[in-house]
């Protein structure tokens, strides 16, 4: 469904990703594991069209999207839930969710999607008329995920959804992610909470210094010595 071939990308003169190739198949949940600065966020931002790769190709459903601008990538069905939530802080929660359904395909079914999403997030429903900036960090993350789902994407990308949240909230976020994946949505996830994420996913890639060093099933990665020492602290 989504395929990266030999991607080199970065910010200005700094190259962060070196020859990254990966693939996500329809219905899969794929994790990218890596330390801070390894290039996980850069990978997602490159797929989303926010960063233009200097080398390599990106294919989505066999269509070359390497130089497709970010807003058109969304229209094709790829949605990124960015690191740090990035809500429209001065807009209400409801307005944030409606912005999520801006994509042409989602707009006509906006009311139906909203009802479905709110059934997954009862807390968000209670906060609909509040300004998004007034919510707690955990609630904001729920809104960010709900907003991403409003686009009815074919593939949903999560960038560090549990970053900066209290442990009890992290548990809730993972339950929500599980609920999302159980609906059959294809997911690509980047998360510092490696154990929980691998538990919830089918396959994983280990990214170190901008290069993919290991690619395997999540089960195998959980028992891989290198992964256990470097990322699970076992």
């Amino acid at each position, binding site marked *: 469904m989504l395929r990266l071939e030999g991607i080199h990308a970065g910010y200005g003169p700094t190259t962060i990703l070196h020859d990254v190739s990966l693939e996500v198949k329809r219905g899969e949940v794929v994790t990218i594991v890596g330390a801070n600065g390894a290039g996980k966020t850069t990978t997602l931002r490159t797929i*989303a*069209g*926010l960063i233009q790769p200097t080398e390599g190709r990106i294919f989505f459903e066999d269509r070359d999207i390497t130089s497709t*601008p*970010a*807003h*058109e990538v*969304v*229209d094709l069905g790829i*949605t*990124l839930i*960015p690191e740090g939530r*990035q*809500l*429209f*802080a*001065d*807009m209400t929660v409801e*307005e944030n969710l*409606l*912005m*999520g359904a*801006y*994509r*042409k395909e989602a*707009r006509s079914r906006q009311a139906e999607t909203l009802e479905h999403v709110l059934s997954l997030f009862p807390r968000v429903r209670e906060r609909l008329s509040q*300004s998004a900036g007034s919510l707690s960090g955990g609630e904001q993350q729920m809104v960010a995920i709900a*907003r991403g789902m409003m*686009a009815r994407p074919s593939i949903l990308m999560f960038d560090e959804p549990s970053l900066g949240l209290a442990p009890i909230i992290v548990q809730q976020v993972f339950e929500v992610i599980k609920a999302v994946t159980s609906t059959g949505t294809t997911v690509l996830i980047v998360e510092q909470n490696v154990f929980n994420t691998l538990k919830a996913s089918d396959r994983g890639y280990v990214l170190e210094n901008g290069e993919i060093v290991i690619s395997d099933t999540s089960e195998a990665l959980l028992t891989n010595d290198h992964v256990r020492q470097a990322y699970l602290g076992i």
Partner: protein
Amino acid sequence: METFLQVLVSGLMLGALFAIVSVGLTLIFGIVKVVNFAHGEFLMLGMYLVYLFTTKLGIHPLLTSVIVAPLLFVAGVATQRFIIQPLMSARDDHIQIFATVGLSTALINLALLLFGADIANTPASGLRTPITIGPVRVLLGQLVILAVSIMLVIGLQAFLKRTQTGRAIRAVAQNRAAAQLMGINVNRIYMLTFGIGAACVGLAASMVAPLYPTSPNIGTYFVLTAFVVVVLGGLGSLTGAFAGAMIIGLIDSFAGFYIGSDVREVVVFGMFLLILILKPSGLFSNRLSLSHVSP
């Protein structure tokens, strides 16, 4: 007492005039984050168009807004697309501001070339008819400006708050990257906003031209006050700009009558400096206020 009332009402009328000229400026600043120094020249251009349509085609000045506002919309879109957008990636934001200063000078000289330095008088077509309400006297055209400026602010607020496009405009102003991730074409939103801001001043032109003589420098005269209004109202706030315009109109009117007409501008711009020093975010709200357009 009667004099006081007359000065008060004249101040409010002047305030409405400043408001209608400032609304587009504050909209463009709030969303595109560009201070458009050519805003006054858009007004000047609009006034010349009104002059041409009234004198050559005999259209009523107020009716010319139906043509002038869309033409200015196109001018605004083109300015964003061909002048501001190519400079968006420039490392220094000030380059965009310098570009609008350059555009302003170019438009003034274009007007000098096309129309000469002489004053062009748009026919008043009844808009200079005095109307007496109790002890005070106003011009019909001034009442029109007041009514239209109020409707414009309310209409723009409703557009930004209640329509999908309006919400997208606010989303871009608040978080450009997140807006892109929603599938919003940011460049298109900027063009649209610049167009709407310019169309607002085109609308203003059809009401200002019958009351004020048109000359190549007329834009500078109005836009300096508009900058004071926009800063006073909190850059980017529509209701703030409206309130700021009323305050400046009243100060101008009272200072002109009770202190002396020579010192009006001293008082107005003295106020401007005081605000910049004491409360640079404006009297009413902060920079983001376009985002919270409360009903």
